[in-house]
């Protein structure tokens, strides 16, 4: 095994394709922390804070027998230890079901990344290098690599889509507060079904990929950006603007998905553009195409009833 540091993340991926790990923030070396430490003058601030709760207790006025009563002290100490025990248990069990430390990786974004990614989602034609960079076998956090998937943009655009849908329904006098919930659950159900179908088809075609479920969720959530652009254009400028902007965003998201998934799903040779014959590579190509083609279909399906 060749462990020499190679600058190209592509080659590292070829050596160990099945050992992608997303480590918790504690393991990442200092040079590339997930989150910046923005607590100003940590020890000083904490020391100042700790002095204050001790103050009123020690200085207690003679009338405040509640605080100096040993029984209530005991009760407070017991209650706080119970609370911390409960919190430990909840943390431990919650981490088994929802990998919180891995989720943190997907939210390590900053403004520059969000801006670049939104531009990429609407205009992916000028971008040349679509590879994700790795740092010693772990993917780099999204704030350092514009190609890495994140969950911030999908989450925010999902919520914005629901609000914009409510706005669109309101301009047609079809709005009622329950409709917001209906729209939200409907879009969520379609998202979950899409992710499940993609997972099933990835299993059936036996693709050796390091795409995790959360990655697929992130990629499926990127289409909400295009939907918002289409609906807002339709609200502002009427139906032709809606169709035009939706068409633009559909093509953009199609190209974006193909270029992103090509590197992850197809074999090395096919991803570099050379034609590789063989039933398996063909199947993978069809799979990539259909995942990318499903995005415009969903985009139209979820927005056409909002613009009349």
């Amino acid at each position: 095994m060749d462990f020499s540091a190679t600058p190209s993340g592509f080659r590292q991926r070829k050596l160990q394709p099945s050992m992608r790990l997303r480590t918790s923030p504690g393991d990442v070396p200092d040079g590339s922390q997930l989150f910046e430490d923005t607590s100003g003058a940590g020890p000083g601030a904490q020391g100042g804070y700790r002095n204050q709760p001790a103050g009123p207790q020690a200085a207690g006025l003679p009338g405040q027998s509640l605080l100096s009563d040993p029984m209530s002290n005991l009760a407070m100490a017991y209650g706080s230890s119970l609370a911390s025990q409960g919190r430990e248990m909840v943390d431990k069990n919650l981490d088994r079901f929802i990998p919180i430390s891995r989720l943190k990786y997907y939210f390590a974004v900053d403004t520059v990344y969000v801006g670049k990614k939104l531009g990429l989602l609407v205009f992916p034609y000028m971008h040349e290098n679509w590879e994700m960079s790795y740092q010693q076998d772990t993917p780099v956090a999204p704030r350092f690599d514009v190609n890495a998937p994140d969950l911030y943009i999908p989450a925010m655009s999902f919520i914005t889509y629901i609000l914009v849908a409510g706005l669109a329904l309101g301009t047609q006098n079809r709005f009622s507060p329950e409709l917001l919930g209906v729209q939200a659950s409907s879009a969520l159900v379609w998202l979950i079904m899409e992710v499940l179908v993609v997972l099933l088809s990835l299993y059936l075609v036996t693709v050796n990929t390091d795409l995790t479920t959360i990655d697929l969720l992130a990629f499926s959530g990127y289409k909400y950006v295009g939907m918002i652009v289409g609906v807002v254009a339709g609200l502002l400028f009427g139906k032709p603007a809606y169709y035009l902007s939706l068409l633009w965003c559909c093509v953009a998201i199609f190209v974006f998905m193909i270029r992103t998934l090509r590197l992850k799903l197809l074999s090395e040779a096919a991803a570099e553009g050379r034609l590789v014959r063989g039933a398996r590579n063909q199947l993978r190509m069809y799979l990539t195409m259909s995942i990318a083609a499903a995005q415009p279909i969903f985009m139209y399906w979820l927005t056409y009833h909002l613009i009349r």
Partner: protein
Amino acid sequence: MAFTLYSLIQTAILCTNAVAVLHEERFLSKMGWGVEQGVGGFGDDPGIKAQILNLIRSVRTIMRVPLIIVNTACIILLLLFG
């Protein structure tokens, strides 16, 4: 199309039930989808049919007991609340 999360759960239960009732001897083997046809090639490329057969067999094995529980709960809830 107003899909709710409840309809998603319903769909999931119905689909899992559908997969669970496929009988091994009476149906799958007759169609050429039995267990012995699934473990054909030992290369690194199992093929789609082998994957589907594996999936059906594992769903039937794993989900048998949870499905009994979930179906019983559904029956009771539907009887009570219509």
